Protein backbone atom coordinates (compact mmCIF):
# COMPACT_ATOMS: atom_id res chain seq x y z
CA UNK A 1 0.00 0.00 0.00
CA UNK A 2 1.27 3.48 -0.84
CA UNK A 3 2.02 6.02 1.97
CA UNK A 4 -1.08 7.98 0.95
CA UNK A 5 -3.18 4.82 1.12
CA UNK A 6 -1.76 4.03 4.56
CA UNK A 7 -2.58 7.55 5.73
CA UNK A 8 -6.17 7.10 4.56
CA UNK A 9 -6.53 3.77 6.42
CA UNK A 10 -4.81 4.95 9.60
CA UNK A 11 -6.16 8.49 9.76
CA UNK A 12 -6.81 10.20 13.08
CA UNK A 13 -10.42 9.11 13.50
CA UNK A 14 -9.91 5.60 12.16
CA UNK A 15 -10.96 2.80 14.50
CA UNK A 16 -8.79 0.27 12.67
CA UNK A 17 -5.58 0.79 14.73
CA UNK A 18 -7.57 0.31 17.94
CA UNK A 19 -9.19 -2.85 16.61
CA UNK A 20 -5.89 -4.27 15.33
CA UNK A 21 -4.13 -3.53 18.60
CA UNK A 22 -6.96 -5.05 20.67
CA UNK A 23 -7.04 -8.18 18.50
CA UNK A 24 -3.28 -8.58 18.67
CA UNK A 25 -3.25 -8.16 22.46
CA UNK A 26 -6.10 -10.66 22.85
CA UNK A 27 -4.27 -13.15 20.63
CA UNK A 28 -1.06 -12.64 22.62
CA UNK A 29 -2.95 -13.29 25.86
CA UNK A 30 -4.46 -16.47 24.42
CA UNK A 31 -1.08 -17.66 23.18
CA UNK A 32 1.11 -16.95 26.22
CA UNK A 33 -1.24 -17.20 29.18
CA UNK A 34 -4.29 -19.04 27.83
CA UNK A 35 -4.76 -22.41 26.16
CA UNK A 36 -3.05 -21.20 22.97
CA UNK A 37 0.26 -22.12 24.61
CA UNK A 38 -1.00 -25.69 25.03
CA UNK A 39 -2.37 -25.91 21.46
CA UNK A 40 0.45 -24.32 19.49
CA UNK A 41 3.49 -23.50 21.63
CA UNK A 42 4.09 -26.33 24.10
CA UNK A 43 6.44 -28.58 22.14
CA UNK A 44 10.19 -28.74 22.82
CA UNK A 45 11.04 -29.17 19.15
CA UNK A 46 12.04 -27.79 16.75
CA UNK A 47 14.87 -25.87 18.37
CA UNK A 48 14.93 -22.20 17.27
CA UNK A 49 18.32 -20.47 17.50
CA UNK A 50 19.29 -23.09 20.07
CA UNK A 51 16.20 -22.52 22.23
CA UNK A 52 13.41 -25.09 22.64
CA UNK A 53 10.29 -24.13 20.71
CA UNK A 54 8.30 -23.63 23.94
CA UNK A 55 10.71 -20.85 24.99
CA UNK A 56 11.11 -19.41 21.48
CA UNK A 57 7.29 -19.19 21.34
CA UNK A 58 7.18 -16.94 24.43
CA UNK A 59 10.14 -14.84 23.23
CA UNK A 60 8.53 -14.48 19.80
CA UNK A 61 5.37 -13.12 21.38
CA UNK A 62 7.46 -10.78 23.50
CA UNK A 63 8.99 -9.27 20.37
CA UNK A 64 5.64 -9.15 18.62
CA UNK A 65 3.92 -7.34 21.53
CA UNK A 66 6.80 -4.87 21.72
CA UNK A 67 6.47 -4.10 17.99
CA UNK A 68 2.70 -3.70 18.24
CA UNK A 69 2.98 -1.38 21.26
CA UNK A 70 5.62 0.67 19.49
CA UNK A 71 3.47 1.15 16.39
CA UNK A 72 0.33 1.86 18.40
CA UNK A 73 2.09 4.47 20.52
CA UNK A 74 3.48 6.16 17.43
CA UNK A 75 0.00 6.34 15.98
CA UNK A 76 -1.47 7.68 19.27
CA UNK A 77 1.25 10.34 19.37
CA UNK A 78 0.64 11.28 15.74
CA UNK A 79 -3.10 11.71 16.47
CA UNK A 80 -2.42 13.88 19.53
CA UNK A 81 0.03 16.07 17.60
CA UNK A 82 -2.35 16.58 14.69
CA UNK A 83 -5.20 17.40 17.12
CA UNK A 84 -2.99 19.99 18.79
CA UNK A 85 -2.07 21.44 15.40
CA UNK A 86 -5.71 22.10 14.49
Amino acid at each position, binding site marked *: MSPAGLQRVFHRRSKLPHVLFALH*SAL*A*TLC*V*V*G*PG*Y*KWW*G*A*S*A*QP*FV*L*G*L*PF*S*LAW*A*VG*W*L*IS*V*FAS*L*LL*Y*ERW*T*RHCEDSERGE
Partner: protein
Amino acid sequence: MASEGQLFFGLSTDAWIVSGVSLLYLLGCLWVGMRGGRDASDSAVGYVAGDRAMGPLLMYFVIGATVFSAFSFLATPGLAYTSGAAVFYVIGYGLVGFIPFYFLGPRAARAGRDRGYITQAEMVAGECGHRAMAGTMALVSALSFVPYLALQIKGAGLVVERLTEGHVPQWLGGAVCYAVVLAYVLKSGVMGVGWTNVFQGILMMGLAWAFGLWLPYKLYGGVGPMFERIYEVKPELLSAPGTKSWQWFISAGIISMIGFSCWPHLFMKAFSARDDRTLRRTVVFYPTFMIFLVPIFLIGFAGVLFPVPPPSPEQVLPHMLMSLDLPAVVVGLFCAGALAAGMSTGDAIVHASASILVRDGWITALGRKLTSTEERRWVRIFVVILMLVSYVLAVFYEGDLVSLLLYAYGPIAQFLPGILIALCGRRRDGVAVHIAMLAGVAVCVGLKAFPEWSPYGLHEGLVGLALNVSVLFALGFVRRATPVSARA
Protein backbone atom coordinates in the same frame (compact mmCIF):
# COMPACT_ATOMS: atom_id res chain seq x y z
CA MET B 1 35.07 -20.29 44.39
CA ALA B 2 38.08 -21.48 46.32
CA SER B 3 37.36 -21.30 50.02
CA GLU B 4 40.54 -22.64 51.50
CA GLY B 5 42.33 -19.25 51.65
CA GLN B 6 43.61 -17.78 54.90
CA LEU B 7 40.96 -17.34 57.59
CA PHE B 8 40.23 -14.01 59.29
CA PHE B 9 37.51 -14.01 61.95
CA GLY B 10 36.33 -17.40 60.65
CA LEU B 11 35.88 -16.17 57.03
CA SER B 12 38.20 -17.20 54.18
CA THR B 13 39.91 -14.52 52.06
CA ASP B 14 37.43 -15.21 49.24
CA ALA B 15 34.46 -14.80 51.55
CA TRP B 16 35.92 -11.44 52.62
CA ILE B 17 36.21 -10.36 48.97
CA VAL B 18 32.60 -11.41 48.27
CA SER B 19 31.41 -9.54 51.34
CA GLY B 20 33.54 -6.52 50.34
CA VAL B 21 32.04 -6.30 46.83
CA SER B 22 28.53 -6.65 48.27
CA LEU B 23 29.31 -3.99 50.84
CA LEU B 24 30.52 -1.63 48.11
CA TYR B 25 27.25 -2.19 46.27
CA LEU B 26 25.27 -1.45 49.45
CA LEU B 27 27.25 1.76 50.01
CA GLY B 28 26.60 2.73 46.38
CA CYS B 29 22.87 2.22 46.90
CA LEU B 30 22.94 4.24 50.07
CA TRP B 31 24.74 7.13 48.37
CA VAL B 32 22.43 7.16 45.33
CA GLY B 33 19.31 6.73 47.47
CA MET B 34 20.20 9.48 49.95
CA ARG B 35 20.90 11.95 47.12
CA GLY B 36 17.83 10.90 45.11
CA GLY B 37 15.30 12.98 47.01
CA ARG B 38 17.28 16.25 47.07
CA ASP B 39 15.05 18.04 44.55
CA ALA B 40 11.70 16.77 45.84
CA SER B 41 9.53 19.09 47.92
CA ASP B 42 8.95 18.53 51.65
CA SER B 43 5.26 17.83 51.09
CA ALA B 44 3.47 14.46 51.17
CA VAL B 45 3.11 14.67 47.36
CA GLY B 46 6.88 15.12 47.12
CA TYR B 47 7.58 12.14 49.36
CA VAL B 48 4.92 9.78 47.96
CA ALA B 49 4.60 10.85 44.29
CA GLY B 50 7.87 12.72 43.60
CA ASP B 51 5.91 15.95 42.88
CA ARG B 52 4.45 14.17 39.79
CA ALA B 53 7.69 14.90 37.92
CA MET B 54 9.30 11.55 36.97
CA GLY B 55 10.68 11.52 33.43
CA PRO B 56 10.85 8.57 30.98
CA LEU B 57 14.25 7.19 32.08
CA LEU B 58 13.33 7.15 35.74
CA MET B 59 9.90 5.65 35.06
CA TYR B 60 11.40 2.92 32.86
CA PHE B 61 13.78 1.78 35.56
CA VAL B 62 11.31 2.26 38.41
CA ILE B 63 8.78 -0.02 36.73
CA GLY B 64 11.31 -2.52 35.37
CA ALA B 65 13.45 -2.87 38.47
CA THR B 66 10.39 -2.95 40.72
CA VAL B 67 8.89 -5.83 38.75
CA PHE B 68 12.12 -7.86 38.71
CA SER B 69 12.72 -8.93 42.23
CA ALA B 70 14.32 -11.62 44.36
CA PHE B 71 11.61 -13.78 42.81
CA SER B 72 13.15 -13.24 39.35
CA PHE B 73 16.73 -13.75 40.43
CA LEU B 74 16.29 -16.73 42.76
CA ALA B 75 12.85 -18.33 42.51
CA THR B 76 12.65 -18.19 38.69
CA PRO B 77 15.89 -20.17 38.10
CA GLY B 78 14.70 -22.44 40.94
CA LEU B 79 11.43 -23.11 39.13
CA ALA B 80 13.25 -23.71 35.81
CA TYR B 81 15.55 -26.13 37.61
CA THR B 82 12.77 -28.17 39.23
CA SER B 83 9.84 -27.81 36.80
CA GLY B 84 11.46 -26.87 33.48
CA ALA B 85 9.16 -25.13 30.98
CA ALA B 86 6.56 -24.39 33.69
CA VAL B 87 8.64 -21.28 34.35
CA PHE B 88 7.68 -19.76 30.98
CA TYR B 89 4.38 -18.61 32.50
CA VAL B 90 6.41 -15.76 34.02
CA ILE B 91 7.06 -14.24 30.56
CA GLY B 92 3.41 -14.67 29.64
CA TYR B 93 1.83 -12.87 32.56
CA GLY B 94 4.46 -10.17 32.72
CA LEU B 95 4.07 -9.42 29.04
CA VAL B 96 0.31 -9.04 28.80
CA GLY B 97 -0.33 -8.02 32.41
CA PHE B 98 1.12 -4.56 31.81
CA ILE B 99 -0.78 -3.71 28.59
CA PRO B 100 -3.91 -2.44 30.45
CA PHE B 101 -1.66 0.17 32.08
CA TYR B 102 -1.22 1.81 28.67
CA PHE B 103 -4.85 2.91 28.89
CA LEU B 104 -5.49 2.94 32.63
CA GLY B 105 -2.23 4.71 33.61
CA PRO B 106 -2.92 8.00 31.78
CA ARG B 107 -6.56 8.01 32.96
CA ALA B 108 -5.43 7.50 36.56
CA ALA B 109 -2.77 10.20 36.17
CA ARG B 110 -5.35 12.70 34.88
CA ALA B 111 -7.71 11.88 37.78
CA GLY B 112 -4.73 12.32 40.13
CA ARG B 113 -3.80 15.71 38.71
CA ASP B 114 -7.42 16.92 38.75
CA ARG B 115 -8.45 15.65 42.16
CA GLY B 116 -5.13 15.28 44.02
CA TYR B 117 -4.93 11.47 44.26
CA ILE B 118 -1.55 9.94 44.97
CA THR B 119 -2.55 6.33 45.73
CA GLN B 120 -4.60 3.70 43.94
CA ALA B 121 -7.11 3.09 46.77
CA GLU B 122 -7.69 6.81 47.23
CA MET B 123 -8.49 7.07 43.51
CA VAL B 124 -10.86 4.07 43.41
CA ALA B 125 -12.68 5.19 46.57
CA GLY B 126 -12.86 8.79 45.38
CA GLU B 127 -14.10 7.99 41.87
CA CYS B 128 -16.70 5.53 43.21
CA GLY B 129 -17.75 7.90 45.99
CA HIS B 130 -17.28 5.40 48.82
CA ARG B 131 -14.52 6.32 51.28
CA ALA B 132 -14.64 3.14 53.37
CA MET B 133 -13.38 1.17 50.37
CA ALA B 134 -10.02 2.96 50.67
CA GLY B 135 -9.62 1.43 54.14
CA THR B 136 -10.33 -2.09 52.85
CA MET B 137 -7.92 -1.66 49.95
CA ALA B 138 -5.25 -0.26 52.25
CA LEU B 139 -5.56 -3.23 54.60
CA VAL B 140 -5.59 -5.81 51.79
CA SER B 141 -2.60 -4.12 50.11
CA ALA B 142 -0.61 -4.09 53.33
CA LEU B 143 -1.46 -7.74 54.08
CA SER B 144 -0.39 -8.77 50.57
CA PHE B 145 2.70 -6.59 50.59
CA VAL B 146 4.06 -8.04 53.81
CA PRO B 147 4.67 -11.55 52.35
CA TYR B 148 6.01 -9.96 49.14
CA LEU B 149 8.44 -7.82 51.10
CA ALA B 150 9.32 -10.81 53.30
CA LEU B 151 10.18 -12.68 50.10
CA GLN B 152 12.70 -9.97 49.15
CA ILE B 153 14.28 -9.97 52.60
CA LYS B 154 14.44 -13.76 52.67
CA GLY B 155 16.03 -13.74 49.19
CA ALA B 156 18.70 -11.25 50.28
CA GLY B 157 19.43 -13.28 53.41
CA LEU B 158 19.70 -16.52 51.41
CA VAL B 159 22.19 -15.05 48.96
CA VAL B 160 24.40 -13.54 51.63
CA GLU B 161 24.36 -16.73 53.73
CA ARG B 162 25.26 -18.97 50.81
CA LEU B 163 28.01 -16.77 49.42
CA THR B 164 29.70 -16.17 52.74
CA GLU B 165 29.85 -19.93 53.29
CA GLY B 166 27.23 -19.71 56.04
CA HIS B 167 29.27 -17.32 58.17
CA VAL B 168 26.75 -14.51 57.80
CA PRO B 169 23.38 -16.08 58.72
CA GLN B 170 20.22 -15.39 56.73
CA TRP B 171 18.73 -13.17 59.44
CA LEU B 172 21.83 -10.94 59.57
CA GLY B 173 22.27 -10.67 55.78
CA GLY B 174 18.61 -9.67 55.35
CA ALA B 175 18.85 -7.20 58.23
CA VAL B 176 21.95 -5.40 56.84
CA CYS B 177 20.55 -5.08 53.31
CA TYR B 178 17.19 -3.79 54.46
CA ALA B 179 18.74 -1.39 56.94
CA VAL B 180 20.20 0.32 53.84
CA VAL B 181 16.78 0.30 52.14
CA LEU B 182 15.18 1.71 55.27
CA ALA B 183 17.71 4.55 55.40
CA TYR B 184 17.17 5.82 51.85
CA VAL B 185 13.40 5.27 51.81
CA LEU B 186 13.06 7.25 55.05
CA LYS B 187 15.30 10.03 53.80
CA SER B 188 14.30 10.40 50.13
CA GLY B 189 10.91 8.74 49.61
CA VAL B 190 9.90 7.78 46.08
CA MET B 191 12.75 9.69 44.40
CA GLY B 192 15.28 7.72 46.45
CA VAL B 193 13.51 4.54 45.34
CA GLY B 194 13.57 5.77 41.73
CA TRP B 195 17.26 6.63 41.47
CA THR B 196 18.43 3.50 43.29
CA ASN B 197 16.26 1.52 40.86
CA VAL B 198 18.21 3.00 37.94
CA PHE B 199 21.46 1.90 39.56
CA GLN B 200 20.10 -1.52 40.58
CA GLY B 201 18.34 -2.11 37.24
CA ILE B 202 21.51 -1.57 35.20
CA LEU B 203 23.52 -3.76 37.55
CA MET B 204 21.10 -6.69 37.63
CA MET B 205 20.37 -6.66 33.89
CA GLY B 206 24.07 -6.64 33.05
CA LEU B 207 24.85 -9.43 35.48
CA ALA B 208 21.88 -11.58 34.47
CA TRP B 209 22.98 -11.50 30.82
CA ALA B 210 26.59 -12.15 31.73
CA PHE B 211 25.81 -15.19 33.91
CA GLY B 212 22.94 -16.43 31.71
CA LEU B 213 25.21 -16.70 28.66
CA TRP B 214 28.40 -17.66 30.43
CA LEU B 215 27.09 -20.57 32.58
CA PRO B 216 25.68 -22.63 29.65
CA TYR B 217 28.92 -21.96 27.73
CA LYS B 218 31.10 -23.05 30.64
CA LEU B 219 29.07 -26.17 31.53
CA TYR B 220 27.83 -27.37 28.10
CA GLY B 221 29.68 -25.41 25.42
CA GLY B 222 26.78 -23.05 24.61
CA VAL B 223 23.03 -22.45 24.93
CA GLY B 224 22.07 -24.77 22.05
CA PRO B 225 24.22 -27.70 23.25
CA MET B 226 22.80 -27.22 26.76
CA PHE B 227 19.20 -27.61 25.62
CA GLU B 228 20.12 -30.54 23.34
CA ARG B 229 21.75 -32.31 26.27
CA ILE B 230 18.73 -31.67 28.54
CA TYR B 231 16.45 -32.92 25.74
CA GLU B 232 18.39 -36.20 25.63
CA VAL B 233 18.26 -36.77 29.38
CA LYS B 234 15.06 -35.05 30.62
CA PRO B 235 12.91 -34.13 27.56
CA GLU B 236 9.82 -33.52 29.73
CA LEU B 237 11.47 -30.37 31.14
CA LEU B 238 11.53 -28.60 27.76
CA SER B 239 7.86 -29.01 26.80
CA ALA B 240 5.36 -26.69 28.46
CA PRO B 241 4.13 -26.96 31.17
CA GLY B 242 7.24 -28.88 32.30
CA THR B 243 6.54 -31.06 35.30
CA LYS B 244 3.50 -28.97 36.36
CA SER B 245 -0.07 -29.42 35.11
CA TRP B 246 -1.77 -27.20 32.50
CA GLN B 247 -4.27 -26.23 35.22
CA TRP B 248 -1.41 -24.87 37.32
CA PHE B 249 0.28 -23.18 34.34
CA ILE B 250 -2.82 -21.39 33.04
CA SER B 251 -4.37 -20.50 36.40
CA ALA B 252 -1.03 -19.23 37.81
CA GLY B 253 -0.55 -17.21 34.59
CA ILE B 254 -4.03 -15.67 34.64
CA ILE B 255 -4.06 -14.74 38.33
CA SER B 256 -0.54 -13.34 38.14
CA MET B 257 -1.49 -11.32 35.03
CA ILE B 258 -4.52 -9.81 36.78
CA GLY B 259 -2.73 -9.26 40.07
CA PHE B 260 0.24 -7.76 38.23
CA SER B 261 -1.92 -5.17 36.46
CA CYS B 262 -3.41 -4.16 39.85
CA TRP B 263 -0.29 -4.07 42.06
CA PRO B 264 -0.73 -0.84 44.04
CA HIS B 265 3.01 -0.05 44.16
CA LEU B 266 3.21 -0.18 40.35
CA PHE B 267 -0.15 1.42 39.73
CA MET B 268 0.56 4.41 41.95
CA LYS B 269 3.60 5.25 39.81
CA ALA B 270 0.98 6.64 37.39
CA PHE B 271 0.71 9.54 39.85
CA SER B 272 4.47 10.10 39.77
CA ALA B 273 4.88 10.41 35.98
CA ARG B 274 5.51 13.78 34.41
CA ASP B 275 2.85 13.34 31.69
CA ASP B 276 0.74 10.80 29.76
CA ARG B 277 3.38 10.24 27.09
CA THR B 278 5.94 9.26 29.69
CA LEU B 279 3.52 6.68 31.07
CA ARG B 280 2.70 5.24 27.66
CA ARG B 281 6.36 5.03 26.66
CA THR B 282 7.08 3.18 29.90
CA VAL B 283 4.56 0.52 28.88
CA VAL B 284 5.92 0.39 25.31
CA PHE B 285 9.52 -0.19 26.40
CA TYR B 286 8.65 -2.49 29.27
CA PRO B 287 9.06 -5.68 27.11
CA THR B 288 12.73 -4.73 26.67
CA PHE B 289 13.04 -5.27 30.42
CA MET B 290 11.10 -8.56 30.16
CA ILE B 291 13.70 -10.03 27.82
CA PHE B 292 15.94 -10.03 30.88
CA LEU B 293 14.01 -13.16 31.98
CA VAL B 294 15.62 -15.22 29.22
CA PRO B 295 19.14 -15.32 30.75
CA ILE B 296 17.50 -16.00 34.12
CA PHE B 297 15.81 -19.07 32.61
CA LEU B 298 19.11 -20.15 31.06
CA ILE B 299 20.72 -20.03 34.49
CA GLY B 300 18.03 -22.34 35.91
CA PHE B 301 18.31 -24.79 33.01
CA ALA B 302 22.10 -24.80 33.33
CA GLY B 303 21.60 -26.32 36.80
CA VAL B 304 19.44 -29.22 35.60
CA LEU B 305 22.35 -31.56 34.83
CA PHE B 306 24.74 -30.03 37.33
CA PRO B 307 26.49 -32.95 39.10
CA VAL B 308 25.83 -31.86 42.70
CA PRO B 309 22.24 -30.72 43.40
CA PRO B 310 21.73 -27.48 45.38
CA PRO B 311 20.42 -27.62 48.98
CA SER B 312 17.15 -26.02 47.76
CA PRO B 313 15.96 -25.08 44.23
CA GLU B 314 16.13 -21.33 45.01
CA GLN B 315 19.85 -21.71 45.67
CA VAL B 316 20.64 -23.21 42.27
CA LEU B 317 22.51 -20.15 40.97
CA PRO B 318 24.58 -19.35 44.09
CA HIS B 319 25.24 -23.08 44.45
CA MET B 320 26.65 -23.38 40.90
CA LEU B 321 28.74 -20.24 41.28
CA MET B 322 30.20 -21.51 44.53
CA SER B 323 31.05 -24.88 42.98
CA LEU B 324 32.74 -23.56 39.82
CA ASP B 325 35.93 -22.23 41.34
CA LEU B 326 35.29 -18.70 40.11
CA PRO B 327 37.24 -15.62 41.16
CA ALA B 328 35.75 -14.20 44.35
CA VAL B 329 35.12 -10.81 42.68
CA VAL B 330 32.78 -12.47 40.15
CA VAL B 331 30.87 -14.21 42.93
CA GLY B 332 30.69 -10.91 44.80
CA LEU B 333 29.26 -9.23 41.70
CA PHE B 334 26.59 -11.89 41.46
CA CYS B 335 25.77 -11.32 45.11
CA ALA B 336 25.40 -7.59 44.39
CA GLY B 337 23.13 -8.33 41.39
CA ALA B 338 20.85 -10.61 43.39
CA LEU B 339 20.67 -8.09 46.22
CA ALA B 340 19.88 -5.36 43.68
CA ALA B 341 16.98 -7.41 42.32
CA GLY B 342 15.46 -7.91 45.76
CA MET B 343 16.12 -4.44 47.11
CA SER B 344 14.78 -2.62 44.03
CA THR B 345 11.42 -4.27 44.65
CA GLY B 346 11.52 -4.18 48.44
CA ASP B 347 12.07 -0.42 48.58
CA ALA B 348 9.11 0.31 46.28
CA ILE B 349 6.86 -2.04 48.25
CA VAL B 350 7.65 -0.71 51.67
CA HIS B 351 7.32 2.89 50.50
CA ALA B 352 4.01 2.18 48.74
CA SER B 353 2.45 0.17 51.55
CA ALA B 354 3.28 2.76 54.20
CA SER B 355 1.92 5.55 51.98
CA ILE B 356 -1.25 3.54 51.34
CA LEU B 357 -1.86 2.76 55.02
CA VAL B 358 -1.55 6.41 56.04
CA ARG B 359 -3.16 8.08 53.05
CA ASP B 360 -5.97 5.58 52.43
CA GLY B 361 -6.46 3.88 55.78
CA TRP B 362 -6.02 6.81 58.09
CA ILE B 363 -6.86 9.91 56.11
CA THR B 364 -9.39 8.78 53.49
CA ALA B 365 -11.22 5.92 55.24
CA LEU B 366 -11.10 7.12 58.84
CA GLY B 367 -11.39 10.79 57.90
CA ARG B 368 -8.47 11.98 60.09
CA LYS B 369 -7.03 15.35 59.24
CA LEU B 370 -3.22 15.49 58.95
CA THR B 371 -1.04 18.31 57.75
CA SER B 372 1.39 17.52 54.93
CA THR B 373 4.29 17.36 57.40
CA GLU B 374 2.41 15.06 59.79
CA GLU B 375 1.41 12.81 56.90
CA ARG B 376 5.02 12.53 55.80
CA ARG B 377 6.11 11.70 59.35
CA TRP B 378 3.47 9.00 59.74
CA VAL B 379 4.38 7.42 56.40
CA ARG B 380 7.95 7.16 57.70
CA ILE B 381 6.78 5.56 60.96
CA PHE B 382 4.77 2.99 59.01
CA VAL B 383 7.80 2.27 56.79
CA VAL B 384 9.67 1.17 59.91
CA ILE B 385 6.73 -0.88 61.28
CA LEU B 386 6.09 -2.71 57.99
CA MET B 387 9.76 -3.42 57.52
CA LEU B 388 9.97 -5.00 60.98
CA VAL B 389 6.85 -7.15 60.48
CA SER B 390 8.11 -8.39 57.09
CA TYR B 391 11.52 -9.09 58.53
CA VAL B 392 10.04 -11.30 61.27
CA LEU B 393 8.01 -13.22 58.65
CA ALA B 394 11.10 -13.63 56.45
CA VAL B 395 13.14 -15.06 59.30
CA PHE B 396 10.51 -17.53 60.52
CA TYR B 397 8.82 -18.57 57.22
CA GLU B 398 9.92 -22.05 56.09
CA GLY B 399 7.98 -22.46 52.77
CA ASP B 400 9.23 -21.80 49.22
CA LEU B 401 9.34 -18.34 47.66
CA VAL B 402 7.03 -18.94 44.66
CA SER B 403 4.03 -19.96 46.77
CA LEU B 404 4.56 -16.89 48.94
CA LEU B 405 4.32 -14.65 45.87
CA LEU B 406 1.34 -16.51 44.38
CA TYR B 407 -0.50 -16.01 47.70
CA ALA B 408 0.06 -12.26 47.48
CA TYR B 409 -1.45 -12.02 43.98
CA GLY B 410 -4.86 -13.47 45.00
CA PRO B 411 -6.21 -10.70 47.25
CA ILE B 412 -4.67 -7.96 45.06
CA ALA B 413 -6.46 -9.33 41.97
CA GLN B 414 -9.77 -8.50 43.71
CA PHE B 415 -9.08 -4.79 43.03
CA LEU B 416 -9.49 -5.20 39.28
CA PRO B 417 -13.28 -4.65 39.01
CA GLY B 418 -13.02 -1.58 41.26
CA ILE B 419 -10.18 -0.06 39.22
CA LEU B 420 -11.99 -0.64 35.92
CA ILE B 421 -15.24 0.83 37.23
CA ALA B 422 -13.47 3.82 38.79
CA LEU B 423 -11.61 4.69 35.58
CA CYS B 424 -13.95 3.51 32.82
CA GLY B 425 -17.39 2.89 34.36
CA ARG B 426 -20.39 5.09 33.64
CA ARG B 427 -22.36 3.92 36.71
CA ARG B 428 -20.09 3.85 39.77
CA ASP B 429 -21.82 2.15 42.68
CA GLY B 430 -19.16 2.28 45.38
CA VAL B 431 -21.13 0.21 47.88
CA ALA B 432 -21.60 -2.66 45.40
CA VAL B 433 -17.90 -2.56 44.40
CA HIS B 434 -16.88 -2.60 48.05
CA ILE B 435 -19.14 -5.55 49.01
CA ALA B 436 -18.04 -7.55 45.94
CA MET B 437 -14.37 -6.84 46.74
CA LEU B 438 -14.83 -7.99 50.35
CA ALA B 439 -16.51 -11.20 49.13
CA GLY B 440 -13.63 -11.88 46.73
CA VAL B 441 -10.97 -11.29 49.36
CA ALA B 442 -12.83 -13.46 51.91
CA VAL B 443 -12.94 -16.35 49.42
CA CYS B 444 -9.22 -15.93 48.70
CA VAL B 445 -8.29 -16.07 52.36
CA GLY B 446 -10.70 -18.96 53.02
CA LEU B 447 -9.41 -21.08 50.15
CA LYS B 448 -5.82 -20.39 51.13
CA ALA B 449 -6.63 -21.88 54.54
CA PHE B 450 -8.60 -24.81 53.03
CA PRO B 451 -7.12 -25.38 49.54
CA GLU B 452 -8.97 -28.70 49.16
CA TRP B 453 -12.22 -26.71 48.74
CA SER B 454 -10.94 -24.94 45.63
CA PRO B 455 -12.89 -26.15 42.53
CA TYR B 456 -10.70 -27.98 39.98
CA GLY B 457 -7.61 -26.98 41.94
CA LEU B 458 -7.86 -23.41 40.62
CA HIS B 459 -5.87 -20.60 42.23
CA GLU B 460 -7.87 -19.07 45.08
CA GLY B 461 -7.56 -15.60 43.55
CA LEU B 462 -9.40 -16.73 40.40
CA VAL B 463 -12.25 -18.26 42.40
CA GLY B 464 -12.42 -15.08 44.48
CA LEU B 465 -12.48 -12.93 41.36
CA ALA B 466 -15.29 -15.00 39.83
CA LEU B 467 -17.36 -14.48 42.99
CA ASN B 468 -16.36 -10.81 43.11
CA VAL B 469 -17.68 -10.16 39.58
CA SER B 470 -20.84 -12.25 40.19
CA VAL B 471 -21.68 -10.30 43.36
CA LEU B 472 -21.00 -7.04 41.53
CA PHE B 473 -23.45 -7.95 38.75
CA ALA B 474 -26.09 -9.22 41.20
CA LEU B 475 -25.85 -6.09 43.36
CA GLY B 476 -25.89 -3.95 40.25
CA PHE B 477 -29.27 -5.39 39.28
CA VAL B 478 -30.71 -5.23 42.81
CA ARG B 479 -29.50 -1.70 43.54
CA ARG B 480 -30.56 -0.35 40.17
CA ALA B 481 -34.09 -1.44 41.08
CA THR B 482 -33.80 0.31 44.47
CA PRO B 483 -34.54 4.05 44.68
CA VAL B 484 -31.38 6.12 45.38
CA SER B 485 -32.94 7.51 48.60
CA ALA B 486 -33.32 3.97 49.99
CA ARG B 487 -29.70 2.95 49.28
CA ALA B 488 -26.98 2.54 51.88
